[in-house]
């Protein structure tokens, strides 16, 4: 036992952005908080890292589109250097052999490159999607309702949702309930005709999930995306200056200002449990820290199965935790290029935006199919950014960084990633070459992170970005597991605050904030 015993109100495990948000929120409420991060740097999958000398890139997440306004406000992130202005919004460009199509502003306030009739169809679909996503939006900043023992506040919250539904009007309300669990493919077919636009939306709906556009419930992914906002506008996206690490730096600064003691390179070995109560942790270095509250902002399965251990919880709970589906299906590509690539038909503004290779919903579906059987997509779909175009500090002068999220790359590749990775990289490069001819010759260095790499490097089991599939059966009251969705766990004093908890993944800070609010409310 060391001197750090009994000195803390709260120990936060994991310095990913949710852990930082949770720790900062607790500290702002007067709790004495210590944050233990396993790696040498905080930020988790939201770090900016140098992947080859002179080239830096947002390590996993590379676009900011859902940092929750409550997080911005609670932690006063603007005062800590994080500003978002309308001018920062970047467009989404659907790449195609038939020429690109661009969604400008906040998720296509203006659509260019499509026919007039498609533009008006999009206007309607966009408005409808934002209305429907708006019904779900209040859930993001709330604890999922406890069905067994509902509080007045929860009842009121649900009542407000019912009201929001009612405010949609009879037609919209019926339609909302009809489409909510629908697949995105069929909905797009109902309303749009341009394959490029449909491909882009199909891609966005399934990004980060083990779902194809034709999989039931895939539309929910699009609504999840559109329930997020940045700079006050739903669906907007920015490439933070300095990469995602800059966002983390702001949150870290807020945390430190609030008095959080941040300890990198302090991996936790074990949560100490005494008589059904979490009372502290033991680090891998053997240090014991005790606190009234232990908050785990790492993966829920790692927390329960490895840090707590199945012996301290019930069999049924272990069953549920083991059954959380979290096999990642997305890879991350980082290219160090001699010079900026030229994507055919795309203007300068477009190159600073998000470039999506998903030429049609059928193409996305075909890319998905092999992943069901443990094979990668021979013609993968992807979302590309060129962060160094807007922030020259990320690459040496004249050179360029390319960052891409590539699907589908099943975690459990049949042939194994050691053998499969070079082949998958070739398939990705072939796609890039088709849309940006000559790009292959300018590659100075390529880093491809498969789900297996992401798992090892960022301590994300299954290499899953969301710490658990974000599908209907693992959302809201079922996230991370049914019966324990409100950030608390069967162990008194132990809380979950990571993306594995409601509302889920993405750089939102919402799970961390909600968890901290829950802890504060319990002690109030």
């Amino acid at each position: 036992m060391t001197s750090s015993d009994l000195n803390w109100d709260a120990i936060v495990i994991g310095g990913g952005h949710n852990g930082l948000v949770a720790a900062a929120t607790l500290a702002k409420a007067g709790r004495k908080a210590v944050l233990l991060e396993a790696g040498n740097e905080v930020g988790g999958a939201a770090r900016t890292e140098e992947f080859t000398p002179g080239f830096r890139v947002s390590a996993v997440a590379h676009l900011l589109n859902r940092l929750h306004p409550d997080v911005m406000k609670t932690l006063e992130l603007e005062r800590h250097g994080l500003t978002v202005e309308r001018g920062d919004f970047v467009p989404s460009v659907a790449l195609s052999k038939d020429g690109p199509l661009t969604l400008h502003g906040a998720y296509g306030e203006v659509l260019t490159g499509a026919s007039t009739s498609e533009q008006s169809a999009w206007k309607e679909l966009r408005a409808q999607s934002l209305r429907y996503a708006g019904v779900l939006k209040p859930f993001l900043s709330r604890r999922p309702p406890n069905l067994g023992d509902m509080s007045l506040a929860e009842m009121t919250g649900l009542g407000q949702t019912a009201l929001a539904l009612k405010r949609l009007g009879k037609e919209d309300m019926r339609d909302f309930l009809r489409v909510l669990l629908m697949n995105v493919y069929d909905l797009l077919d109902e309303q749009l005709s341009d394959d490029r636009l449909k491909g882009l939306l199909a891609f966005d709906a399934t990004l980060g999930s083990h779902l194809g556009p034709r999989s039931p419930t895939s539309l929910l992914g699009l609504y999840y995306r559109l329930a997020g906002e940045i700079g006050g506008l739903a669906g907007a996206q920015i490439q933070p200056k300095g990469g995602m690490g800059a966002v983390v730096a702001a949150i870290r600064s807020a945390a430190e200002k609030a008095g959080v003691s941040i300890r990198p390179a302090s991996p936790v070995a074990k949560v100490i449990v005494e008589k059904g109560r979490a009372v502290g942790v033991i680090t891998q270095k053997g240090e014991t820290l005790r606190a009234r509250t232990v908050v785990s902002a790492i993966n829920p399965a790692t927390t329960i199965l490895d840090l707590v251990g199945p012996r301290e919880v019930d069999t049924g709970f272990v069953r549920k935790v083991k059954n959380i589906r979290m096999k990642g299906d997305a890879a991350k590509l980082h290219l160090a290029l001699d010079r900026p690539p030229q994507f055919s038909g795309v203007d300068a503004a477009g190159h600073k935006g998000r470039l999506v290779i998903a030429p049609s919903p059928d193409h996305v579906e075909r890319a998905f199919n092999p992943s069901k059987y443990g094979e990668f997509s021979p013609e993968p779909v992807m979302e590309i950014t060129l962060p160094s175009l807007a922030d020259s500090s990320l690459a040496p002068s004249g050179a360029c960084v390319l960052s891409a999220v590539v699907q589908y790359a099943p975690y459990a590749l049949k042939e194994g990633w050691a053998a499969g990775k070079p082949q998958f990289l070739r398939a990705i490069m072939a796609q890039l070459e088709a849309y940006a001819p000559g790009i292959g010759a300018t590659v100075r260095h390529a880093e491809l992170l498969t789900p297996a790499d992401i798992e090892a490097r960022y301590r994300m089991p299954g290499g899953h970005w969301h710490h658990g599939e974000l599908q209907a059966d693992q959302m809201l009251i079922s996230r991370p597991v049914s019966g324990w969705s409100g950030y608390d766990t069967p162990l008194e004093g132990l809380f979950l605050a990571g993306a594995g908890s409601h509302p889920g993944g993405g750089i939102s800070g919402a799970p961390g904030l909600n968890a901290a609010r829950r802890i504060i409310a319990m002690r109030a």
Partner: protein
Amino acid sequence: MAQATRKKPVDTEIDTALEARSAAQSHFRTLRLGTPFQPRIDALGLKQDWYSWAGYRAPHSLWDEELEYFAIRSQAALFDISPMTKYRIEGPDAEAYLDRVTLRDVTRLKPGRVHYTAWCDDEGFVLDDGTLFRLSPTRFRLCSQERHLPWLLDSAFRYDVRVEEETEAVAGLALQGPTSFAILRDAGFAGVERLKVFDLAEFAHDGATVTISRTGFTGDLGYELFVPADKALSLWDRLMAAGELRGIRAIGYTALNRARLEAGLIVANADFTTSEHAIRTDRLRMPDEIGLGFMIDPDKGHFNGRRAILEARAKKKLRHVLVGLEIEGNIPAEHAIVYYKKGQEVGLVSAAMWSPMAKRNIALASLQRPYGDTIVDDLWVEIYAMRELQYQKLMKKAKVVPRPFIKLDRRTANPPADF
């Protein structure tokens, strides 16, 4: 007009394949399996009164219910317990594993001892009760009413332990009654006199080993014997031969059921509904609600259901209580409704009989708290007595009494008495 164009298959290969397939699916031809003792029991089963015990053909009664019951109390009764579900649990972590799965403190169960225990799901509802035999520091046998292999295997995650079902491989006999000890001694099981209640030991039998424990379900002097299935018949014959002059009789379940009621013991799915069987949410029972609260040890390590059980205690959420009743008169109150002040329904009798040993009309009943818990006066049962095709409704006074209803010194006497 459509014409029949399909020809009958004449291919003999197909016929053979079909035959092979139906041969592999012949299980449905045996509606109820026999136990390893079946040849002996069939020969004695004069009444052909069978029921299904976990899929096995088991006798309600072999020749006479009354005399079978009195064999337990006055002689020695042999009862086939082979259909009881048995698990072999072995490994360095077996003790820790069972301590997490079951309610009672397994670290205090010494090798060579047996205890009665129960286990719960996450919500603290009882999955089953049963007996745990500690055969060695690292080897146990868990006996239960229901099957639990998936639960037991899932519970074994991250324990160094092997869990195997051995229901078919191991045959079991209960030898119960005042002369049971003398029979075992005469059968040549030297040292059996040293077994105290809940002790177990291994003895040689027919080139194999028989595990004998001083346990049973009758509240009487008695033993249970476990033997490899292929030695079952020779064990039966050995006991029958040794017991001939001491009144040994094979018995069926009806007689045993009476004895266990006198002993105040409960039966899963008769006196309470196990949590995996319960369909209606108000049928689930916590240990405290079926008289098993004594098993809960908040100071031992974590066990399944601990959080829920302690929370229910703290928040006073326990809704039921299982009690022993003594009812006026001599008409068994089986499945009678229990009333408070003759008018308010407060529970149900799950088992009842006129006890020849206690000379009392006894019953087990499940009541809604606070009745049976803090309010124990003015309780009544309504008995529907069938009298020549007409019910005669009897409202009888019921008194909550402690269990067991009978206490026999010979059950625990050391050394066991020679009758």
